[in-house]
């Protein structure tokens, strides 16, 4: 990395330190902001993970832990704590980190940044208070006319305003970094990905304001809100916010790839164009939540979920190639050139940053991506809507993909930003395996249970007390037990992560300099043995790109892998059409 070459502006208004590992200059005030956002994020994760354990133990019919009222309440807590507070606090940390540390730049308007953080924190606390006290049993989606205490909607608005201000400061940081000539050339691809996430965040938060402000007024009895319009605009927030996650996650993929195996950018044009596709098309794709709603016609549904969604799918399929191919080429340029998969075999599997990256890519792509695109199809949605297949899908994307990438990034942020060794190092090395393994079992079995028609957000599928009996196939009980076991394994992985993060940050061994070339427990391998390309990297790269290597080009291993992916995708998609065709005729 040759980042430290940027010239400095003559007047220093911020206090910097030089990162001993990367040579980049880090603004201490930005560093403090990254820290508080990251800590808030991990605390939210803890709340959400405790809730998760209670939930899986309730849906496991043999245990059936919580009473109905508390099940729905804790389900709301789980959704808000994970999808909103954990993820968005972390994304704010990523935005601040990307716009300062990665650009050698300073944080502008630090007082405003702290005020924004205070707003987010206050909003989060109000929402948690309302939910735990039973004043907001409306679950994550809070569909009107189901009513919560007005303070719940107000809390969401406060949190969103705070996040919006932080996103604004991110753009300001970029402008000032350029103006103060902190770097030469273009933005790095990782920061470009963060810009994408920030733009989508603005689109999302504007939708949030457009729906939560009227809903707040409605909860006070001041105006009416149409339930269908609510669903439409709410999903402009609800699903687009997951696209912030996707963009942030892909940016982290590129970052972790560079840090762990020296991933190279195959082609800036392709990778950046794919990010642009996210910005242009992803928001309208939120329409797939309304595929079996009475409010919109087929033409509207097809236009919004096909042209628009599939251009975003294209973007993900492009990243699904360029990320592993970048890793493969990076490894080959470091001398791991044997055969098709030697680069993968010789990769640093003991580095939690790397294993988290690999699992994030694989589970997000194979499970999250394939199921998501399939169930987001107008007609197939008839056999999916509100069944367990839906949470099966999004636990593969948001949890196994985004959360896993965030965890991998944290193993690098702890030494780089908090300047501490990673605590419980042997546990840290297996944590991604625990979490990803649990999540894989959890998401696949959930998807399977949903295929039997098991509803989501449902306390008791034995239906005791219902006027008519419902007899699920006995296999469903077994599958739900597997869901619970997968969930408990994943939760164990999450608790391990939380324990590692908290112990490192608050009680960790301080880190002076990061020794090079020595294996040190508590420091990821990518920092002690930074991946270095061969000295004649350009010659090697040209040889690998030579036309004589044919269509497989410089990355034959990745080509093989993406075709396995495509085959799985095609198979799953058409099997679903076949299943659909057995149903009653509906039109």
């Amino acid at each position, binding site marked *: 990395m040759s980042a430290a070459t940027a010239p400095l502006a003559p007047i220093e208004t911020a206090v910097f330190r030089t990162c001993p590992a990367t040579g980049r200059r880090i603004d201490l005030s930005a560093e403090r902001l990254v820290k508080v956002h990251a800590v808030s994020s991990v605390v939210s994760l803890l709340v959400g993970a405790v809730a998760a354990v209670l939930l899986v133990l309730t849906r496991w019919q043999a245990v059936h832990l919580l009473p109905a009222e508390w099940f729905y309440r804790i389900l709301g807590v789980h959704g808000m704590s994970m999808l909103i507070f954990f993820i968005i606090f972390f994304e704010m940390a990523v935005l601040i980190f990307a716009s300062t540390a990665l650009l050698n730049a300073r944080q502008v308007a630090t007082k405003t940044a702290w005020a924004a953080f205070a707003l987010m924190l206050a909003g989060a606390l109000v929402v948690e208070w309302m939910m735990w006290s039973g004043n907001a*049993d409306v679950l994550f989606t809070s569909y009107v006319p189901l009513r919560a205490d007005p303070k719940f909607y107000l809390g969401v608005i406060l949190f969103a305003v705070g996040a919006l201000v932080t996103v604004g400061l991110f753009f300001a940081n970029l402008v000032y970094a350029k103006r103060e000539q902190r770097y*030469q050339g273009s933005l790095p*691809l990782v920061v470009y990905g963060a810009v994408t996430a920030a733009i989508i965040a603005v689109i999302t938060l504007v939708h949030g304001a457009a729906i939560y402000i009227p809903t707040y007024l409605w909860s006070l009895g001041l105006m009416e809100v149409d*339930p269908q319009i609510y669903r439409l605009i709410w999903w402009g927030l609800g699903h687009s916010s997951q696209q912030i996650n996707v963009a942030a996650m892909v940016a982290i993929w590129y970052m972790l790839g560079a840090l762990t195996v020296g991933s190279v950018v195959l082609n800036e044009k392709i990778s950046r164009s794919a990010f642009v596709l996210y910005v242009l098309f992803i928001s309208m794709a939120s329409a797939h939540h309304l595929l079996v709603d009475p409010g919109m016609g087929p033409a509207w549904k097809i236009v919004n979920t*096909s042209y628009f969604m599939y251009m975003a799918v294209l973007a993900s399929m492009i990243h699904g190639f360029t990320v592993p191919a970048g890793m493969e080429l990076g490894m080959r340029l470091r001398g791991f050139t044997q055969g098709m998969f030697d680069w993968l075999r010789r990769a640093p599997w003991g580095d939690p940053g790397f294993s988290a990256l690999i699992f994030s890519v694989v589970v997000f792509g194979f499970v999250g991506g394939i199921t998501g695109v399939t169930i987001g199809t107008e007609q197939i949605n008839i056999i999916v*809507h509100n069944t367990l297949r839906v949470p099966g899908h999004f636990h593969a994307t948001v949890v196994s993909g985004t959360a896993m990438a965030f965890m991998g990034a944290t193993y690098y942020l702890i030494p780089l930003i908090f300047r501490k060794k990673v605590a419980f190092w042997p546990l840290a090395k297996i944590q991604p395996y625990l979490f990803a393994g649990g999540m894989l079992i959890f998401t696949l079995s959930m998807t399977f249970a949903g295929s039997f028609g098991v509803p989501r957000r449902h*306390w*008791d599928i034995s*239906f005791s007390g219902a006027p*008519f009996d419902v007899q699920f196939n006995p296999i469903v009980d077994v599958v739900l037990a597997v869901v619970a076991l997968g969930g408990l394994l994943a939760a164990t992985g999450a608790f391990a992560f939380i324990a590692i993060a908290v112990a490192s940050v608050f009680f960790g061994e301080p880190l002076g300099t990061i020794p090079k070339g020595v294996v040190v427990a508590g420091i990821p391998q990518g920092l002690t043995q930074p991946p270095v390309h061969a000295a004649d990297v350009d010659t090697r790269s040209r040889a690998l790109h030579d036309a004589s290597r044919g269509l497989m080009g410089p990355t034959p291993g990745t080509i093989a892998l993406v075709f396995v992916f495509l085959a799985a995708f095609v198979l799953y998609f058409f099997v679903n059409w076949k299943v659909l065709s057995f149903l009653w005729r509906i039109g």
Partner: protein
Amino acid sequence: MLTDTHTGLDFPQGTWWKPAHKSEKVWVAIAFVWCMVLFAMMPLWHWKGGQNPSGIRRTTTPADFMARVTEFTNQYKVGEDRGLPIVAPPPGADVYLVAYSFQWSPILKLQKNVEYTLHLSSLDVNHGFSLYPINVNFQVVPGYDYGLRVTPNAAGDFRIICNEFCGIGHHIMVGRVMVDDAPSVASLGGVR
């Protein structure tokens, strides 16, 4: 910059808008074609397939819809089960099913291979129509009348499970649909 090769953390110098390697271009092209296949399936199924969520969509009010449900129930009522009316509409009829916390009403008695127009709406909050065990799912939104043309293709005793959270009694909200093997009704339309 010393080299042409760089990672995603480096600042690309000069013009980075350069042609990609053929393998990358081919993958982008294949991915694009696949996305077009994904797209084409939806309009194609409207034309050739039998399961589409299009329906007749109107706005309504809870009072208007309930009036229609009551009228429909009184007209075709054939019995009662657990206090709920059992209604057997004639082939081709408009069938009204209402959702409210925490019940589906009435109980429907339909015939196999006959087309009906099933109107769904809610009196209070969002509900989820999930026909068990065949796994057909629709959103039921208050203020909206969703008229779906349905043709049962098998006889049996079905359940309607609410699969949208609607309050504390959500999990006991179960309705019932019976489908009888009808006398031959091939001429009445809706036959596969």
